[in-house]
Structure formats: structure tokens, C-alpha cells
């Protein structure tokens, strides 16, 4: 089985990537035509990798479970994408982006990978503009920037609140060009069911056509997993309904180590849960924290009155409000990193200051920003800056132009007008920093099997900064994987087409078939969602924003019991050979039920607080996260061993050559 060599090139940090590119093996254009690559997933990472691999000349087969590659959940990313362009002249640089990302990740990410990410970030913006991605511009026609959490510069490029959509459609357009040329064969409504290994190498997949239910065999010289994160293990998250861990989990079961599963991002600004029927949560972009101020009432009786509907937030005087982020973290204020903002919201709500019916919400208030923008606009237009009505109207127009779609989304869901009354928000599961372990070349511990984008673990450590996910997805897909994969494929130029009529494919297909039949033939009583919701409750209550030994141990036991019950009592209606969403979902939930246990085990083993992982046993007297660098400066890479509880831990030590490891402070 695989070893844990991160293959980080030698040499000074800032030269590693350049030198590595010069030294690795290449495949000639003529030979690329003889090589097939499978890509699973069409988000930013998968779509950009597919397009680039096809442009380079490889034969690409790309799979997505949705009805079109354009649906992948990268499309829902709102706020922006970071790049060290320093267009604002505010002192930004590759180094500063690198430094911010390492610090933001609470010193649990790999220096070399993060530096490479910062290096290629500027190319992403150039590339996207060339593709016609309509980023926001100022009146001089140049690109505009905004600021995101955990940084002191404005390096975030954006397209209103739909940056992910515009970037994904850019990558989708690059794919479309290659699909039109026949270099990418696109398989919509197909799900990867398993990885096929031949002589220990990834040589193909078993896929299921979700419309006909038929299983298919696809051979290739390399397999790239770009299937995103596993936030849906919590049932309620900001992920899409179909987002799942299955492709990552299937390769894990075939030998790919799974790294840092407990590193999960709980995003501070989401629309609170409204009832038991809730199927998913909706994010309100972090960009709103540029202009919105977060607060709860200062007095507990005011909070109670608000919860009972006796008091309106707008009636509360300024001195009766507690802008707790500005109070606790004066340097970064409302723009502290996500993990810090989320825990602070939970702390206030747990103390009884929550502002909605369930007591699990805080305010995000734009009143001050509306006045500030309104006065500016009145000044520019030579109007009366002291006319409150006029200022409010002008200010609202500016806020609408910046965040219009987010405000509209909020109003449709909550039925309140956020221009007039503050938004209510609460933290929710949003992103998973953990994922499949990869080396510097983004190869997993299975030769020929790669993981890119959110599916891998490599760049964000224990906490991801806002607007960095889009950056990483496109960096991996456009600029990293297409080069590094050549180093491996250079040995495959004489291999020839991978045959699929072999015993390895026979066995893999039979296993998938048996698994599916077992679901259909199981005469159970509970629906798939019944189990998914139960799993989500365990995860949220015991492996959520704050974790302790007792809860985590209980979670492991409960998840194991739930999994056993699932296999006995799950009811999957319909047949095998048809469009059967419940059957597809059953397979995904089965994998979540295994991952969940490993997640809890990982959180239990990591007895320190870092980034999004907060262990109650490890905190400062003020309640801030307390890292234990002496004992935990490593990546936990788990090797599959049938039972998640028995998974084998491999440690990849994290060495910081360039950066001095410090206590993260945003005060």
C-alpha cells in the first residue's frame, strides 16, 4: 500500500514550483493522443482540469452526476476569488497571500503547496479575463477588488455575488470548446461507483448511468477525482443536495489515505434553520462582512424581548448593542476569519443573546453602511448630505448594486427586507478542508489516482480563508495538475488502451452490482433520508463547532450503530434499471455513515484546537483556540482498514522553513 512521501521538491520555497516544472517528465504531443484520463466531477477543479488536459492533447472522459457539467456546486460560490495582483497598491504580494493563507489555516497546511497556490493566483485572473469572465470593474474600466476575512489588503476579485457562477461558466466554456472538438467525452448523469486498480495502479472506473441504471466500464491511464467536499455528512450544510463523498471514499477504500477529516469549515453567515423540514442551508457571502456589522443586544432582557417579538432590532439604541467582533478583535473587527467569527456567534447565542425564535441567530446590520455610502453619493452628486431620507435612498442603491442578489435571496427565504431590518444569520457547515491525501503532484497514495480542488486536503490547513476555494480549484485544474500528471503518464506512452474486459473490471463491476441489489432487495422500513438526518444530528451535536472527548467517543459509537441499522432497515424503492434517485442517494449515505465515524475518530485523536477544529479541552482562559504545536504539527492521513474505528494513522510532519509558527491573533 502507498507510502507517505509528500514529494516536495528541494530548493528555496519560492523556486520550488518553477524548478519542479522544469525537471519533471513531459509527454510529447504525439504521445498525449495515446493517453486517456478520467476526470470525476465538473466543478472549478474538474472542469478546468478537463479543459486543460484536453487542450494539451490527452483524451479526456469527464463524469458528473448532474444533468449538465454547469450545475456543479462551485456555481454557488458567491463572494470572490483571491489573487496576489496588488492592483490596489495596498502592499499585497505573492508572499503576503502565502503568509495569510498559512496563518489563516492555523499552521496546519503544507508550505510548498500554499506557496505554489499564491504564485499561480495571478495567472488565474489573467486567464479568466481572457475567457470573457465578466469580473466587476470600476469606472476607469479596470478590475475592482474587495476585502475578505483574515487579511488586511483588498485582493478579492468578484462578479457581484455570483463569482463562482461566472468562474465555473468560464471553465465550462473552455470544456465546451474541447467537447465540440471531440477531445472531451462528457458523461452527464453518470456517477462513479468504484475505482478499478490494475497492478496497484488506477486504471479506470465503474460508472452508473443514472438515467438507465446500467453499469459501465471506463478504462484510462489515470483517474482524477474532483468531486468536491463532504460537508453533507452533516445533512444540513450549504452544499448542494447531491454533493457527496462517494468518489473520494471509494478511492479511500482502495488505498488512498484520507487526511484531516475533522477539519471542517463552519461558515459564520448563513440563514438560520427555520424548522424540521429544512433540507439545506443558504449562505450569505462573507463579502457582506465588508459592509455589514455583526451584533447582538447588550442586555439579555432585550434579547428575550426580541425573541418574543416585543422589540424590534431597529428600535434598539446604539449603546444597547454589542458589536462583539469589533469589541473582541479590534484589528480585524467584522473581518476575522470564519472559524473565529462562527465560534464568537455561538458563544453569544449559548450565553442567551440569540435573536430569533430558536435563539440561534445574530444580526448582520447594513444600516451604518447605507448611511456611509449614501453620504458619499450625495457628496459626489452635490446633494444635501444631511437629508436622512435621501441619504438612505442613495445608500440603499449602492448596497443593492454590490449585494443585490444576496439581499433578494435573503428576502425570498426569510420574508423580511434586509434593507430595512438587519439580517439574521447563524453559522453552518460550508466547506471541508480535509480530504484525500495528496503529494506535491496532487497524486493520492494510489499511483495514477489524483485528487484536486476541495476533494483533496492540501492547501487550507485547519481553516480556509474566504475567496480561497475558487482560487485553489482553478489553480489545481488549470495550472498544477495538467503539468504534474505528465510526470506519471510519461511512463505510460507505450501502455496502449486500457482494456476493460479483464478480471479486475469484472470483480469491480460485480461488487458494485451486488451492493446495489442489496439495497433494492432490502425489505426495510426507513427511508434513506431518515438515516441521513440522524447522522447529521449526531455530527452537528457532537462533532460540530465545539468538540470534546466524551461527545466524540459517543459519536463514534452512535454512528456505528446507525450504520448497522441502516444496512438492516433501509428501504430503497424502485428498481435497478431505471432513474432511481433514492438508490443513488442510498449509496452516498452509506459512504457518509463510514466517513462520519472516521471524522469523529480524527477529531478525537487531535487533542488540540486549531482553525475550525475546536477541542474544549484545549483553549485559553479567554476561550480562544489553543494549538499544541509540539504534539500536533502534522497531517493525519488515515489508511482504510475495513472498520473506520480501526483506520491506521500515518503522520506527515509539517515543516515550516519560511514562516515562523506563531499564535494566530486577530486582535
Amino acid at each position, binding site marked *: 500500500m502507498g507510502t507517505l512521501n509528500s514529494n516536495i521538491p528541494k530548493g528555496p520555497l519560492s523556486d520550488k514550483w518553477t524548478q519542479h516544472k522544469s525537471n519533471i517528465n513531459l509527454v510529447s504531443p504525439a504521445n498525449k493522443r495515446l493517453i486517456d484520463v478520467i476526470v470525476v466531477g465538473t466543478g472549478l477543479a474538474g472542469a*478546468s482540469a478537463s479543459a*486543460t488536459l484536453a*487542450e494539451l492533447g490527452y483524451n479526456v472522459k469527464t463524469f458528473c452526476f*448532474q*444533468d*449538465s457539467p*454547469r450545475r456543479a*456546486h462551485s*456555481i*454557488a460560490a458567491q463572494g470572490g476569488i483571491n489573487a496576489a*495582483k496588488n492592483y490596489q497598491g495596498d502592499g499585497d504580494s505573492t508572499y503576503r497571500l502565502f503568509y495569510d493563507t498559512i496563518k489563516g489555516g492555523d499552521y496546519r497546511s503544507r508550505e510548498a503547496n500554499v506557496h505554489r497556490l499564491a504564485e499561480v493566483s495571478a*495567472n*488565474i485572473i*489573467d*486567464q*479568466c*479575463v481572457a*475567457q*470573457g469572465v*465578466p*469580473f*466587476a*470593474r470600476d*469606472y476607469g*474600466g479596470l*478590475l475592482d477588488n474587495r476585502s475578505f476575512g483574515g487579511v488586511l489588503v483588498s485582493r478579492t476579485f468578484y*462578479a*457581484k455575488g*455570483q463569482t463562482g*457562477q461566472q468562474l465555473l461558466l468560464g471553465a*465550462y*466554456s473552455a470544456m*465546451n*470548446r474541447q467537447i*465540440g472538438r471531440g477531445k472531451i467525452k*462528457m458523461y*452527464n448523469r453518470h456517477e462513479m461507483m468504484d475505482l478499478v486498480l490494475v497492478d496497484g495502479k488506477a486504471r479506470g472506473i465503474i460508472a452508473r448511468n443514472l438515467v438507465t441504471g446500467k453499469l459501465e466500464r471506463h478504462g484510462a491511464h489515470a483517474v482524477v477525482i474532483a468531486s468536491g467536499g463532504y460537508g453533507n455528512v452533516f445533512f444540513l450544510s*450549504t452544499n*448542494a*443536495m*447531491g454533493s457527496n463523498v462517494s468518489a473520494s471514499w471509494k478511492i479511500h477504500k482502495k488505498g488512498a489515505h484520507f487526511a484531516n477529516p475533522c477539519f471542517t469549515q463552519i461558515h459564520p453567515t448563513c440563514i438560520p434553520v427555520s*424548522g424540521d*423540514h*429544512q*433540507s*439545506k442551508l443558504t*449562505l450569505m457571502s462573507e463579502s457582506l462582512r465588508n459592509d455589514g456589522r455583526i451584533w447582538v443586544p447588550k442586555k439579555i432582557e432585550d434579547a428575550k424581548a426580541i425573541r418574543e417579538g416585543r422589540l424590534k432590532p431597529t428600535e434598539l439604541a446604539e449603546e444597547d448593542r454589542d458589536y462583539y467582533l469589533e469589541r473582541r478583535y479590534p484589528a480585524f473587527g467584522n473581518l476575522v476569519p470564519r472559524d473565529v467569527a462562527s465560534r464568537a456567534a455561538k458563544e453569544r447565542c449559548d450565553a442567551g443573546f440569540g435573536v430569533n425564535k430558536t435563539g440561534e441567530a445574530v444580526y448582520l446590520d447594513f444600516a451604518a453602511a447605507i448611511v456611509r455610502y449614501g453620504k458619499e453619493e450625495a457628496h459626489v452628486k452635490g446633494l444635501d448630505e444631511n437629508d436622512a431620507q435621501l441619504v438612505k435612498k442613495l445608500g440603499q442603491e449602492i448596497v443593492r448594486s454590490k449585494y443585490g442578489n444576496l439581499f*433578494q*435571496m435573503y428576502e*425570498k*427565504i426569510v*420574508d423580511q427586507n434586509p434593507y430595512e431590518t438587519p439580517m439574521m444569520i447563524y453559522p453552518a457547515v460550508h466547506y471541508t478542508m480535509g480530504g484525500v491525501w495528496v503529494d506535491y503532484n496532487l497524486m493520492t497514495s494510489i499511483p495514477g489516482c489524483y485528487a484536486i480542488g476541495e476533494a483533496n486536503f492540501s492547501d487550507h490547513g485547519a481553516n480556509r480563508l474566504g475567496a480561497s476555494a475558487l482560487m485553489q480549484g482553478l489553480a489545481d485544474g*488549470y495550472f498544477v495538475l495538467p503539468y504534474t500528471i505528465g510526470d506519471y503518464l510519461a511512463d505510460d506512452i507505450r501502455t496502449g488502451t486500457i482494456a476493460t474486459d479483464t478480471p479486475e473490471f469484472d470483480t469491480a463491476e460485480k461488487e458494485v452490482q451486488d451492493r446495489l441489489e442489496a439495497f433494492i432487495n432490502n425489505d426495510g422500513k426507513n*427511508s434513506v433520508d431518515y438515516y441521513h438526518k440522524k447522522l447529521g444530528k449526531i455530527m452537528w451535536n457532537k462533532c460540530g463547532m465545539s468538540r470534546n472527548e466524551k461527545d466524540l467517543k459517543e459519536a463514534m459509537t452512535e454512528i456505528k450503530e446507525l450504520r448497522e441499522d441502516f444496512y438492516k432497515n433501509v428501504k430503497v*424503492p*424502485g428498481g435497478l434499471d*431505471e*432513474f432511481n*434517485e*433514492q438508490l443513488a442517494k442510498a449509496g452516498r449515505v452509506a459512504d457518509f455513515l463510514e466517513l462520519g465515524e472516521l471524522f469523529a475518530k480524527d477529531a478525537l485523536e487531535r487533542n488540540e484546537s486549531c482553525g475550525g477544529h475546536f477541542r474544549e479541552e484545549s483553549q485559553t482562559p479567554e476561550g480562544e483556540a489553543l494549538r499544541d504545536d509540539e504534539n500536533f504539527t502534522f497531517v493525519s492521513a488515515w489508511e482504510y482498514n475495513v472498520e473506520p474505528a480501526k483506520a491506521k494513522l500515518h503522520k506527515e510532519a509539517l515543516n515550516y522553513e519560511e514562516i515562523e509558527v506563531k499564535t494566530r491573533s486577530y486582535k
Partner: protein
Amino acid sequence: MNLTLKVWRQANTTTRGSFETYPIADVSPDMSFLEMMDVLNEELIQKGIDPIAFDHDCREGICGMCSMFINGEAHGPDRLVTTCQLHMRKFKDGDTITIEPFRAKAFPVVKDLAVDRSAFDRVQHAGGFISVNTSGNTQDANAITIEKHDADRAFDAATCIGCGACVATCKNASAMLFVSAKVSQYALLPQGKVEATDRVLNMVKQMDEEGFGNCTNTGACEVECPKGISLENIARMNREYLTASIKG
């Protein structure tokens, strides 16, 4: 709320479909329409009835996967929302709600309320791109200045989510709003000018081959579009097409 749902059931593309009626009780006004469908499906599963198939994914109005023709309107009675953002507070206790798939020759039914919109993808394959390799070796992003007004209009066109509401709404099942949104995005940007002629000709040709109808300017598509894509885009595409035809 208690409601009666009349839902189109169709086993697959080739079989005939029909309406089935299902009562549903205790619907909360805070539920989204799809959450109401989840509750119904849970009940159907318990009763041993095949749950209703419908497309959905992000449930925040951006992926474009959800569809449904609700009471005769694509994405239902609310404006500027997709079905996943439609909330039950838009309905009243006792209402009967008719739910159909998006209907168009180019969108065959896959099952129940799910349809095949791959025709949209094929139109994009024909020209919905700028031919620039993803090497990263392009010019600096700020080397091209774009007038804010044009950049904003290009963005507005680019916000199309490809859901197909325009096609389902149009009496001719025309895809002009969808296709023109892409053509406009690139037509408004200097980067898109180089291939403008081929792009519009190829995309329109593919659109016709897929079996979409023509535009007769009723404007229904713009009204039902969850993203408010403007009819101006169709006018712009017609101008682009005319220019390209003369040149080409």
C-alpha cells in the same frame, strides 16, 4: 396548510404520462416548494409508492437544475426565483397545485418532472466560448480596459443559469433568450469580438437543429426568467446574426 397536488407522472421517456393526485397536510408556509415535495416523497415511500422524480441540486437558485411548471408557470407564481426558492407562503390553505415538467420537443421527459436539457449543452459546444487556451500565458488582466457599462451588461447576460424556463414558457418553445444571453455576453466584451461571426452563426444553427422554435416577440420568457435576463439580448443576437450573415 392542507393542499392538493396534481403531479405529472411518467415512468420514462418512451411511456405515456398522466396526472396523479396527492393530498398533503400540515405544510408550513416557511417551507420551500421542494421541501414540500421532499415531505410528499417521504410519505409516498412509506406507502410503497414510487417517489416523484424531479431535478434539483443547489437549492439556492443558482445551479439551474430545478425546473417544474407550477400552475401553468415555469418555477411557479413568484417572480425572479427558481422553484427551489419558491416558498409555500405564496400559496393558500386548500389550494390545488398542478405540477408538470418543462415541456418542449427539445426537452424530452426523463422521468416524472425531470427533463433532458442536454440540447442546451450542445448549443454551447457549438460556440459558447472564447478560443483561448488555458495556459495562463495571456496578457495581464488589466491590459484590457472595459467600459463599466458594457462590463455590467455582459455580466447581466452571463447570469443566465440555463434552467430552460424561457423554453418551457415560450409558446414556440424557443431558446432565443438562452442563446442570446451567451452571444450577448461575448458580443459586449472586446475578448469576444474576434470570433463573433462564427459564434453567432454556429450557435443559431445548432439551436435550430435541436428543434427549438423561433421567437415571435411575446416577451413571456423575460417575465418568467428567474434571473431577469432581458429581451434586449435577443435583439442584440438578431443584429449580430444579421451582420454575421452578410459578412459570412
